[in-house]
């Protein structure tokens, strides 16, 4: 209980104000270009390669765990054996096998069905849930040889979605199904040390000099061993916000956006707070849905809706074929541009596209084009002919991909705009989004449902959604509410999971401490 008398002392007269310039904490930043697509990419190839690549990449890890766990296991006088391919399973033999999960769900959109019924629509039908309660859903395990149905009560204890790689132990029954006794996941991938790619700043504290973002790609041993300094001390903060939803039609949260802006600029609040808290925010990450293209507010409520289906509602009165330029409202992107251009002089920003942003619909979403930001574009990295994989320094405004991976202040950050979790969410009964994130980490795949139900680029050479390394911080934007959790891996990996809520709905900003990776949040309220 705070009373007015207590806080009245915080109000100052003009004469009491000392004018000091507050300097913002530096941010060490090295984005990884894991999710950039080539400019001259081809879309002609088949999606099967993506599944094959994923299986090939993850299978050794899951087989290793399976072998450690199950080799020598004797059940009912029978020793479990490893089977290489699902078609090699003999009926009645206790064995284990690994493969890709395929969920056969009646409610799930099915491309074969669409083709057979001659449905050729560009936008997918958006169903909130693929999961059906009547138990019609079937779990199948497939590899490059074939497909086998999985049954058993164990399956109900874990979340499974299409595309994740698992190993199962069991016996084939008379129906040709595998009675699953146990399931193993690949579990967390190896986690890099802090400061693997970048060097820690030589001077700690806020006013350090400009630090070169040198890369330590080469085998720099002492770098790997450098202990994280000042463990336990409060470091700087990384601000993560998502769903700013700058809108041309809905002013209901415009003031909150202003307050957020002032908070990030460091103009709000009093001097001590500015110096102690606001100046510590060294970077802003915008995790998707920065602008709102929808004029109808009810469209926002279906957060779990298929990302690609959220399009402009057609104008009721006039129906125009093709693109109707009069329906375009430039105000949202203009507001975002103003927001960014005001903020950029004092803070670096990483911008991930989201489902509503003007980027490509399929995963991985490529950066929002800088032409959307006539004011802010001068902070972007110059367009390099060498492509995104070049050694050029990241832009001060890093308009990045979704998903996005980077080393921020030494920590490996992985973030998405939320579509991957939203899509996995449809497969399972649970509302536990953190649990899904954890499952993704343990599956080593951040978008298992791509390309089945999550639109995706048909990858040929590698599947970037496979988690080759475990991040330190894994955040998902545009979620209904804030939540966070720390998970631990078998090799001592520690991952901070954060669901970042949509600002337009919750008016919340997430702050991550750069030393302890502790999460705090700032709520903005108007009354």
């Amino acid at each position, binding site marked *: 209980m705070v009373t007015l008398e207590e806080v009245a002392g915080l109000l100052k007269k003009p004469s009491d*104000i000392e004018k000091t310039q507050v300097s913002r904490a530096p941010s060490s930043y090295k984005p990884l270009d894991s999710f950039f697509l080539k400019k001259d990419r081809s879309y002609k190839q088949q999606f099967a390669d993506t599944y094959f690549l994923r299986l090939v990449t993850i299978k050794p890890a899951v087989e290793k765990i399976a072998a450690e766990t199950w080799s020598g296991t004797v059940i009912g006088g029978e020793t479990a054996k490893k089977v290489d391919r699902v078609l090699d399973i003999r009926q009645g033999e206790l064995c284990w096998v690994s493969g890709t999960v395929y969920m056969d769900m009646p409610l799930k959109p099915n491309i074969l069905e669409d083709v057979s019924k001659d449905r050729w629509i560009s936008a997918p039908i958006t169903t909130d849930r693929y999961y059906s309660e009547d138990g019609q859903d079937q779990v199948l395990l497939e590899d490059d040889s074939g497909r086998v149905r999985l049954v058993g009560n164990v399956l109900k204890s874990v979340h499974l979605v299409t595309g994740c790689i698992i190993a199962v132990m069991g016996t084939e029954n008379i129906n040709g199904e595998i009675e699953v006794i146990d399931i193993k996941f690949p579990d967390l991938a190896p986690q890099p040390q802090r400061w693997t790619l970048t060097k820690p700043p030589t001077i700690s504290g806020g006013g350090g000099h400009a630090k070169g973002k040198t890369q330590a790609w080469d085998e720099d041993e002492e770098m790997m061993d450098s202990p994280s300094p000042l463990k336990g001390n409060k470091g700087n903060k990384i601000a993560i916000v998502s769903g700013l939803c700058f809108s041309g039609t809905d002013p209901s949260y415009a*003031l909150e956006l202003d*307050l957020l802006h002032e908070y990030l600029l460091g*103009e709000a609040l009093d001097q001590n707070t500015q110096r102690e808290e606001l100046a510590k925010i060294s970077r802003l990450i915008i995790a998707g849905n920065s602008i709102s293209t929808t004029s109808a507010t009810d469209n926002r409520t279906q957060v779990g809706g298929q990302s690609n289906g959220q399009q402009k509602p057609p104008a009721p009165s006039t129906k125009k074929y093709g693109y109707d330029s009069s329906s375009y409202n430039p105000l949202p992107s203009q507001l975002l541009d103003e927001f960014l251009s005001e903020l950029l002089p004092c*803070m670096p920003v990483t911008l991930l596209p989201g489902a509503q942003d003007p980027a490509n619909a399929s995963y991985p979403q490529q950066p929002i084009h800088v032409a959307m930001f006539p004011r802010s574009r001068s*902070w972007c990295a110059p367009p390099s002919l060498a492509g995104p994989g070049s050694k050029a320094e990241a832009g001060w405004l890093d308009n990045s991909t979704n998903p996005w991976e980077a080393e921020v202040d030494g920590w490996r950050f992985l973030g998405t705009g939320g579509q991957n979790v939203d899509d996995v969410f449809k497969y399972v009964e649970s509302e536990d989004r953190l649990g899904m994130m954890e499952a993704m980490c343990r599956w080593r795949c951040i978008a298992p449902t791509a390309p089945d139900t999550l639109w995706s680029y048909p990858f040929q050479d590698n599947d970037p959604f496979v988690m080759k390394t475990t991040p330190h911080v894994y955040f998902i934007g545009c979620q209904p509410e*804030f939540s966070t959790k720390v998970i631990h891996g078998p090799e001592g990996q520690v991952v901070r999971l954060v669901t970042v809520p949509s600002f337009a709905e919750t008016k919340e900003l997430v702050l991550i401490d750069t030393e302890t990776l502790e999460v705090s949040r700032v709520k903005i309220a108007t009354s």
Partner: protein
Amino acid sequence: MLIFRVATMEDYKKYLAERLFTEDKMVTYRTLSRALKVHVNVAKAMLYDFHRWQNAMTHGKVHATYLVYGTKKPEMQDDGDVEMSGSSREGNTDEEVFTQTLSLASQDRLSEVLSTYQHVTSFQVYSLSAHPLKQVQLLSDVTREVLDYSHEDSAERSKQYGSMFNAHMRKRDRHGKRPQAAPVSSANPVEKKAAITPASSSSGPKKPTEKTTEKTTEKPTEAAAKVKEEPKDTAVKEEKPPAKTRKAAPPTLKRGASSSSGGIMSAFSKAVAKASSKSASASSTPKPEEQTTPVLSDDGEDDSEAVPAPKKVADDTAARAKKQREDELRLMMEESDGEESEQKEEDEEMGEDAPIEEAPEPEVEAEAEAEAEAEPEAKTKSKKREAEPTEIISASGDGRRRGRRRVMKKKQTVDSQGYLVTIQEPGWESFSEDETPSTPASAPAPAPAPTSSKAKISSTSSPAGSQSSKGKKAGARSQGSIMSFFSKK
């Protein structure tokens, strides 16, 4: 909005009183800070001081909103923010997350809001208004005023207004066209305006944008190369090369008319076409007399008039293009019918005339001459019909016209920076068509010659309006038939 250069301690009271009571507007600490050029923290204190001072005199005269920042009590999440309640509990967070809340509260609800807090770390006046604020969201409109100051230099801004300063900030270097660094050019817009000189050389000071539209209507005497720089925050910035504006058109045309040679007209029109393709502003208000040169070719010649005028191309601003179109249209109205261009004789004349007539513009004339030499048979039209493709009829027997005509050709190249550049340049294309060439794209005056019987039919069937502009001439040239006589009335 008033801008105070130096805000003394008492200035702000005057400013605030004016803003709040006279203009009846809301003031936030940010607008105050920008208006008086003071630090935001000082502005907050000023608001507080003013609020206290005014309300000490008259209670309730000024209404304030406050910004409260701190930690809320854990259980008190039910009032005030209904849509948030419960959400923090549901998320299966395995630890208590430190949550700070930033609340904006009007002064009526301040104690209520404060009572939900456990600890307040910061408390400030956010805004003042003369009336109680019913809709706090209205404040966001006020805040937008701050954007007017946003183009100022960031380092400067940080010092002056107290935005956070970031020493590591880097912008990308704009290679190529804009040498002026953005913050520098915008730092003192007022001084810029004062520095304008009327007729500047290409290296002279920049002219503001508002001159751009004037440019086309400038007097010929003012013809000089001008570099215009638009304000730096203009998103789509057109670079104008130091263009030589050719303004000496009227004298040239008059002299050309007096010498009664179509050749000089053609030279001029070529020059203009060239100039416009180079995105120089070629504006002219020529008043060429009606030329009654004899028609040397047969009926088909007249038809060439009906060939549509292609759009003038390569204008760098839409405004100028529009202006030019208007000019052309006006010219077309002024003269009901144009001169027929001469055949080869004229072109020979042109070779001699052009250097004399267009002496004041060596560049233009050089181009014209070069082109005239390159195309000795070039038969071009006068300025009035410069937009029409000019033609050379090499053969017009057996019911077909063959020859070459002048067209604008599009050329696309990729420049060094990877941009696609489309250039339209005049070129020649040979053609062979019927004597009454079809008008492919809606001629301004699609009236075929009423001499041939075929044309007669079409002329009678065509609306009278389209005929009217050509009637006089057609009558003068040939007797025509009685049908055409009737159709004209």
